[in-house]
């Protein structure tokens, strides 16, 4: 046989060889890592500036103002912010046409201590440019953001003269006010001066509203342009309407340790019913109102005018007036928002993992039961019929092993998915059509993995802070947490419950809920205007609640408020938590010996606690409407088919309180507000009280928010104490708002203190009481009241 010459072979099969060469070439090109065009790397320029001068509060968000310029071809780049050493990045995809300049805001989730942020722009994983930003953690400080079109300098007390909560003023241009409430989370006080808020975008307005709700202190400057500042703000953020200009009565400023200025130009403020004022009744110096956990202070004057800035008492005034509404002394330092405590509560609740998907064991048990019969009498009968009983020594083991292998193969194939995904959402209504949604989600998997999570594009996501869960430890997840993208990646280690926290302001029509107060009864009316079905709707105020039940979309539920318990009747101690009021019976049953609480019940308890708690401060007493949603508006869909999932969502809303004509306000509605006078709480046999360690002690009793227009005719205060009330030497005074003086009363405590003609003693739903003399011996005071009056 003659062998063909290789050249002749190639010539004869040239088409086949050409095709083969082409395939090899294509494969080579595909596998070869082509160098990226050098000009693409040089085309992107980036300028990064951290807002608030790079100052941030522990675990809060820091907005980064980033300007990107592309002098090359159009590109899609990813901007990322990384804390050195962390396992996650906040990223933002940006489309940059050729020659374009774009300004974007990237929100960086901060930790407790970092002083550096790495911000980079990258394309297909290749870093095009990187910048290192200096940042500084600020804990327990008053970060005062001055938003002003004109230069504004306040005469603030220097850091060294204050024992705590020093001021840290930073300038913020009106256009830089973040459009995400999280972007303001590091700010303690936001002062608006000569700002045309009508120019703000709707997200900016919502962000400011949500920030105040969460515990921020918004200060609105007075002055000639005050109306412009007020014009674009939501009604909830307005404490008073503005009247004509006039010289203000400065007598009340004498309380700040210096003789008040002779004159102070300003406007006449007409306070809203819920607002309290300081100064002359007709023309107060400022009006204040509470909004959620925050506060709005509306000044009648411009704080930058020389009459104030050069006044010796200015520093004392600002130190007192610009206090955060809520100051929580936590282990890590002072916090001015309950968000941290709430997140911890929600994270802990994540430990109530859902039940795993159990494999279908019924068939296996049934086949094993059949096997039990077959392996003994079954085989014995067969062998006896064949007269081969001795063969059992072979048949029985072979049958057992064969059956075992089959069942084990079946068992291996039928194993259930061991992955668990759990998420808990707290939806808090803060405006007519807006709610702030917080979702914590965690995943547990036997294998390490990277999971895609679908989330609303506007949601800001960061790793959970971690901590001990109810049953398992919850750890932060890693990965690229993309913003304005709709999806992000979550990296999970094996056998670790790890998760993320998401925050977003969502469009949600407000629940139409109202408590109608009359002389005879109180009606709770809830109309479901959310467009979703609501389950187990309940209205809570103080230690009482009324159940509305399930409400389909558009449905209305009405219930009569329970009458006050009669003499000798058991009533919950003062300060009983809302979760106990709502779920008390179920929780009590679950905690009896032999029972174990359903984990869904524990999650519901945690959600109610998270909605009302304020860290170490007293919890909010309401009124609240709690309802359960089937689907969270801020759902994080972890793509893990087959995993056991759990989603619990609670909607919390604050019902209006309304009334017409004469009305009776039952006991428990007029209750101590410890935040106003910075009273210390105490706990005794009757529940939570006011610590009376030193005299005199001043405390304020408040009606629920929204009852500012109630005019009391008769007030009855119930005052008890943990230790015996001294039978002599205790002075009792009630503040007369009309005359701005304390009215001494003769009160033989403990018992009921009845105040007839009480109109002068209640302003904006508040009654102030001062007890002096030997009251310290009573140790712990339990006070509440009832009122008769008119709306």
């Amino acid at each position: 046989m003659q062998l063909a010459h290789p050249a002749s072979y190639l010539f004869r099969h040239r088409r086949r060889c050409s095709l083969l060469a082409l395939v090899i070439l294509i494969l080579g090109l595909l596998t070869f890592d082509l160098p990226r065009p050098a000009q693409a790397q040089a085309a992107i320029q980036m300028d990064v500036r951290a807002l608030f001068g790079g100052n941030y509060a522990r675990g809060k968000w820091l907005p980064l103002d980033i300007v990107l310029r592309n002098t090359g071809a159009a590109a899609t780049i990813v901007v990322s912010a990384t804390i050195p050493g962390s396992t996650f990045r906040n990223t933002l995809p940006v489309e940059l046409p050729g020659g374009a300049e774009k300004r974007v805001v990237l929100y960086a989730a901060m930790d407790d201590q970092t002083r550096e942020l790495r911000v980079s722009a990258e394309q297909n994983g290749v870093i095009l440019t990187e910048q290192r930003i200096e940042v500084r953690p600020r804990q327990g400080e008053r970060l005062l953001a001055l938003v002003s079109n004109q230069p504004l300098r306040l005469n603030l007390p220097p850091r060294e003269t204050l024992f705590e909560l020093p001021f840290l003023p930073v300038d913020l241009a009106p256009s830089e006010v973040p459009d995400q409430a999280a972007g303001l989370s590091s700010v303690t006080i936001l002062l608006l001066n000569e700002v045309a808020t009508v120019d703000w975008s709707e997200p900016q307005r919502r962000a400011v509203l949500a920030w105040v709700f969460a515990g921020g202190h918004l200060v609105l400057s007075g002055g000639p342009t005050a109306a412009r500042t007020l014009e674009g703000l939501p009604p909830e953020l307005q404490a008073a309407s503005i009247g004509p200009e006039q010289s203000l009565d400065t007598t009340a400023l004498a309380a700040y340790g210096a003789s008040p200025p002779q004159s102070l130009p300003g406007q006449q403020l007409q306070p809203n019913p819920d607002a309290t004022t300081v100064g002359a009744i007709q023309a107060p110096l400022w009006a204040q109102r509470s909004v959620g956990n925050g506060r709005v202070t509306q000044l009648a004057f411009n704080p930058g005018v020389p009459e104030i800035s050069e006044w010796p008492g200015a520093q004392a005034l600002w130190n007192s007036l610009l206090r955060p509404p809520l100051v929580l002394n936590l282990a890590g330092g002072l916090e001015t928002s309950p968000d941290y405590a709430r997140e911890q509560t929600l994270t802990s609740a994540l430990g109530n993992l859902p039940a795993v998907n159990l494999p279908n064991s019924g068939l296996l048990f049934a086949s094993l039961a059949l096997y039990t019969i077959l392996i003994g009498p079954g085989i014995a009968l067969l062998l006896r019929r064949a007269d081969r009983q001795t063969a059992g020594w072979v048949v029985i083991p072979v049958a057992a092993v064969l059956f075992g292998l089959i069942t084990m193969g079946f068992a291996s194939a039928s194993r259930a998915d061991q992955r668990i995904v759990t998420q808990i959402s707290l939806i808090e209504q803060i405006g007519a059509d807006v709610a702030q949604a917080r979702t914590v989600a965690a995943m547990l998997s036997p294998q390490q993995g990277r999971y895609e999570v679908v989330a609303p594009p506007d949601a800001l996501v960061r790793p959970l802070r971690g901590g001990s869960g109810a049953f398992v430890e919850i750890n932060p997840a890693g990965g690229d947490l993309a913003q304005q993208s709709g999806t992000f990646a979550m990296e999970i280690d094996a056998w670790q419950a790890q998760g993320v926290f998401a925050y977003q302001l969502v469009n949600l029509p407000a629940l139409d809920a109202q408590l109608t107060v009359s002389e005879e009864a109180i009606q709770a009316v809830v109309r479901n205007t959310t467009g979703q079905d609501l389950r187990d709707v309940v209205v809570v105020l103080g230690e009482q609640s009324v159940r509305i039940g399930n409400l389909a979309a558009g449905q209305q539920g009405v219930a009569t408020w329970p009458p006050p318990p009669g003499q000798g009747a058991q009533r919950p101690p003062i300060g009983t938590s809302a979760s106990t009021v709502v779920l008390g019976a179920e929780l009590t049953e679950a905690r009896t010996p032999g029972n174990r609480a359903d984990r869904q019940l524990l999650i519901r308890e945690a959600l109610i606690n998270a909605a009302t708690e304020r860290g170490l401060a007293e919890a909010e007493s309401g009124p609240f409407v709690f309802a359960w949603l089937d689907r969270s508006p801020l759902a994080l869909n972890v793509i893990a088919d087959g995993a056991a999932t759990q989603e619990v969502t609670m909607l919390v809303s604050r019902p209006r309180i309304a009334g017409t004509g004469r009305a009776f306000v039952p006991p428990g509605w007029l209750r101590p507000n410890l935040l106003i006078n910075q009273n210390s709480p105490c706990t005794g046999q009757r529940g939570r009280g006011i610590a009376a360690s030193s005299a005199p002690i001043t405390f304020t009793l408040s009606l629920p928010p929204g009852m500012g227009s109630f005019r009391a005719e008769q007030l009855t205060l119930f005052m008890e104490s943990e230790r015996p009330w001294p039978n002599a030497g205790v002075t009792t005074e009630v503040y007369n708002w009309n005359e701005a003086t304390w009215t001494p009363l003769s009160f033989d405590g403990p018992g009921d203190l009845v105040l007839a003609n009480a109109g002068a003693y209640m302003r904006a739903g508040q009654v102030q009481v001062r007890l002096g003399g030997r009251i310290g011996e009573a140790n712990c005071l339990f006070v509440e009241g009832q009122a008769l009056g008119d709306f």
Partner: protein
Amino acid sequence: MPVLIKEFRALLRGSRAALLITIYVGLALIAMRLVYNSVASAIGSGPPLFNAQIGQSMFIGLSLAVQTLTTFVAPATTVNSISSEHERRTFELLLATPIAATQVLIGKLIAALAFLGLLLVSVFPLYSIVVLFGGVGFIDIARILVTITLTAITGCMLGLICSIVTRQTYSATLLCYVLLVALIGGTIFASNLYSVVRAAMPAPPVYLATNPLAAMASALGRTTLPPVLGTETIQPLVILSLLSEGTLAIDRGRLVGLPTYRVTWTIYTGVSLLLFWLSIHAIQPTNRWRLSRVDTIMLGLFVIYGLFVWFSRDWWLAGLRLPQA
């Protein structure tokens, strides 16, 4: 060999063996089902349960059931093996044949162990339920398999010596089970009593070193959970605490079982050898304590055993030491 063949034929004749297999497998299956029901009923309340934990709970339930059954069934397979020959007066006839007494003994013993092996193999498919839920590794299964096997051998030897010594099935059964109950109940009682009188301080592991149920509890206690839980939620090991007082310990904040089963393995091996040697001599009709070639073999086995015990002392003595703080 003739004795072995005869025993093999006799054991599977009739319905007794089939019934015993069904009861053995059935009881183990019922135990599993009860464990599953009790665990699955709590799936939505209390600490979260993972499939691995359910699998481990069922593994514990099944293994304990099998060990308990083996402990009591193993002596039963041999307790009448020699005494019944005496009662039927066939023992002398057997000895009149060329078959030596030692061969009779070995034949009876192998047949009994083979039947026990049959029972254990019959239970094998039940472990598929454990596979369904997971949480148990090969080493865990191997550990309990060795424990069960050594318990079975020792039980057979105990039954055999009782049968030889008493020559009456009734007396042999009584003696054998009195010893067994005393061993199991007595050691558990003693260790719990020690704990009660010392303010709940665990008894030294040596108290339970010879207890077959404690050995199984200790072997099962080494089964570890996935490192998922920062807090100790459900440790199936806790189920075993009643049986294993003194073999549980806190190691770096985690509840673990001491490897006391290694001590039990070592003791059971030695006891089995000793009982076998005693049986060889006790079965002889005359000159019982005259040394023979078998004694040389046994001496060799004892030397090997002694060397093993000595050189592996760190390994098995770990079962008697509490973890260092």
